[in-house]
């Protein structure tokens, strides 16, 4: 009699998947736990916190106007610039009128508390960024050896009548240059009604220099001899952050009021410090206590408790692991808020299966609205929560699958 060994491939694969899933869960937990980075020196599992990157400043601006509408426009555009750049905390206060050299000026205080590049933030606050297209004055010689930088100054140019108001957008993009390298260009896109006139202007100056005057400094632009369809001015910036800032300056509105940066004062950064290790321990204890109390009070079915507990741990651990592995900087004070809301969400979803779809859609819609329309920390928290709602969904499905498979063994 021959003994045929029974080889159940399905069972084997199930077990194999279970082992893989268990190792993934363990890895995620280990990576997410605080101080795990001390276990291995091969890879860094440090949570990149923003706490040490914060700096705070107050800029004082003097506006050459006392007109309320103009002041409000300047405030709005500076706020828009800083908000687009991701400055976390912005406050722009109108201090009031003051007299400077027999002229009334308005003083604005711009307070920032942020982790963003200080030089670029200053650029966004200090520059009026008034753009004009100009043409060389006939009497000025740019090849005069005595004045080698003559081509840079606006006084050596005449206005063409074209300024930022004539362009609907200035698109910043990377384009191939003649020497086959890539560089950033600012493409000036005129309003449809102005397109024909702009083409005429370019035709008029074929083979000659035009200039882009930005706040009194001019970048020369040689209009090609052949017919020109786009007006693309090369930019002298290579880093992505610089280009992001310049794009914001070009496209965040037109400040027609002249202003100057008078002072900048360093302030103590406003940091909400959180004991990350203590909070993690607190959370683990509270989570276990919460679920234990639910079991002891016989409030919930044990299977639901297991599922909710596993899904909660999994969501938070995967979220923290992603932050750690990809070195995503995070405000530590947002982590406890995120954790509390995730636990509440998962517990509610596990118990109320009828409501899952409504709650998920409502939450994602609300957070998307806040992300699009909101600003500052509300916008940052909303972006984190969108991902966490999605991650909770995946974790709930994975937890159910995992627990069912465990039962089958």
């Amino acid at each position, binding site marked *: 009699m021959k003994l045929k060994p029974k080889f159940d491939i399905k069972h084997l694969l199930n077990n194999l998947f279970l082992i893989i899933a268990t190792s993934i869960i363990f890895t995620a937990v280990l990576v997410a736990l605080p101080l795990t980075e001390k276990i291995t020196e091969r890879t860094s599992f440090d949570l990149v916190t923003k706490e040490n990157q914060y700096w705070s400043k107050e800029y004082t601006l003097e506006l050459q106007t006392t007109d309320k509408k103009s002041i*409000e426009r300047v*405030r*709005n555009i500076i*706020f*828009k610039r800083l*908000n687009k750049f991701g400055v976390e*905390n912005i*406050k*722009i206060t109108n201090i009031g009128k003051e007299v400077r050299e027999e002229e009334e000026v308005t003083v604005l205080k711009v307070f920032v*508390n942020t982790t963003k590049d200080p030089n670029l933030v200053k650029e966004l606050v200090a520059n009026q960024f008034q753009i004009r297209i100009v043409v060389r004055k006939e009497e000025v010689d740019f090849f005069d050896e005595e004045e080698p930088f003559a081509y840079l100054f606006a006084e050596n140019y005449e206005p063409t009548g074209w300024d930022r108001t004539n362009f609907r957008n200035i698109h910043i993009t990377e384009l191939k240059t003649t020497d086959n390298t890539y560089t950033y260009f600012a493409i000036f896109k005129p309003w449809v009604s102005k397109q024909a006139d702009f083409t005429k202007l370019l035709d008029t100056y074929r083979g000659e220099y035009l200039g882009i005057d930005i706040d009194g400094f001019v970048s020369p632009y040689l209009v090609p001899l052949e017919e020109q369809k786009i007006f693309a001015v090369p930019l002298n910036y290579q880093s992505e952050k610089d280009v992001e800032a310049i794009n914001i300056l070009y496209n965040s509105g037109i400040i027609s009021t002249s202003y100057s940066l008078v002072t900048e004062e360093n302030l103590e950064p*406003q940091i*909400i410090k*959180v*004991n990350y290790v*203590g*909070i993690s321990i*607190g*959370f683990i*204890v*509270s*989570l276990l*206590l*919460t679920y234990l*109390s*639910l079991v002891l009070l016989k*409030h*919930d079915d044990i299977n639901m408790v297991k599922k909710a507990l596993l899904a909660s741990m999994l969501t938070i651990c995967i979220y923290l692991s992603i932050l750690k592995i990809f070195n995503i900087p995070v405000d530590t*004070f947002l982590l*406890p*808020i995120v954790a*509390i*809301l995730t*636990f*509440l*969400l998962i*517990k*509610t979803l596990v*118990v*109320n299966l*009828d*409501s*899952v*779809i*409504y*709650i998920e859609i*409502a*939450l994602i*819609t*609300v957070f998307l*609205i*806040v992300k699009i*329309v*909101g*600003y*500052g*920390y*509300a916008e940052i*928290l*909303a972006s984190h*929560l969108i991902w966490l709602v999605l991650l909770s969904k995946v974790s709930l499905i994975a937890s159910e699958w995992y627990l069912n498979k465990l039962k089958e063994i």
Partner: protein
Amino acid sequence: MEIFLDLWNNWTTLEKISGLSCFCIIFPLLPIAVKVITKNKPLSIFSTLSLLSTALFTLIGIVALRIVFDLEISHIFLLTPLVLLFVNILNIGTCVGYYSMHSKRKGFNLIELKEEYQKDSIQLTILILLLFLSLSIFLTSTFLVFIIFTGLLSLGIIWFNYALFYWFVLK
């Protein structure tokens, strides 16, 4: 009133537009969604009033912190409305979900919905209490105030919602 006027005047027009847009989009959107899902007018009124009460609770809470406790309202308190909205959506969502799934079942009545809603509210209360309290042990200064303030308001909203449900849906 003065602190709100100060806050309002210090905001740029963009900040005002941003805040108002969030409110004006979310505020009608959720009750409309409730109306479409449940086709029940009292539930729609209940969700509208619930959202309004969230906004009102936040305002009253901030005034109380500023005037009664003389605490400085920092930028972190701008997160309170978002957290409260989250809790409110969970709270209303459980009620709406149960109603939409069971309202057509034979023998369904509002008392059953009330019991289910009460159970969910109790559960949410236990969770919020335990999570916020356990966290508070490790916190200090502004963040501690923020967590206690937001936790208490969340509990207030859950049980005010329950009262609204009782008055507008059950009666």
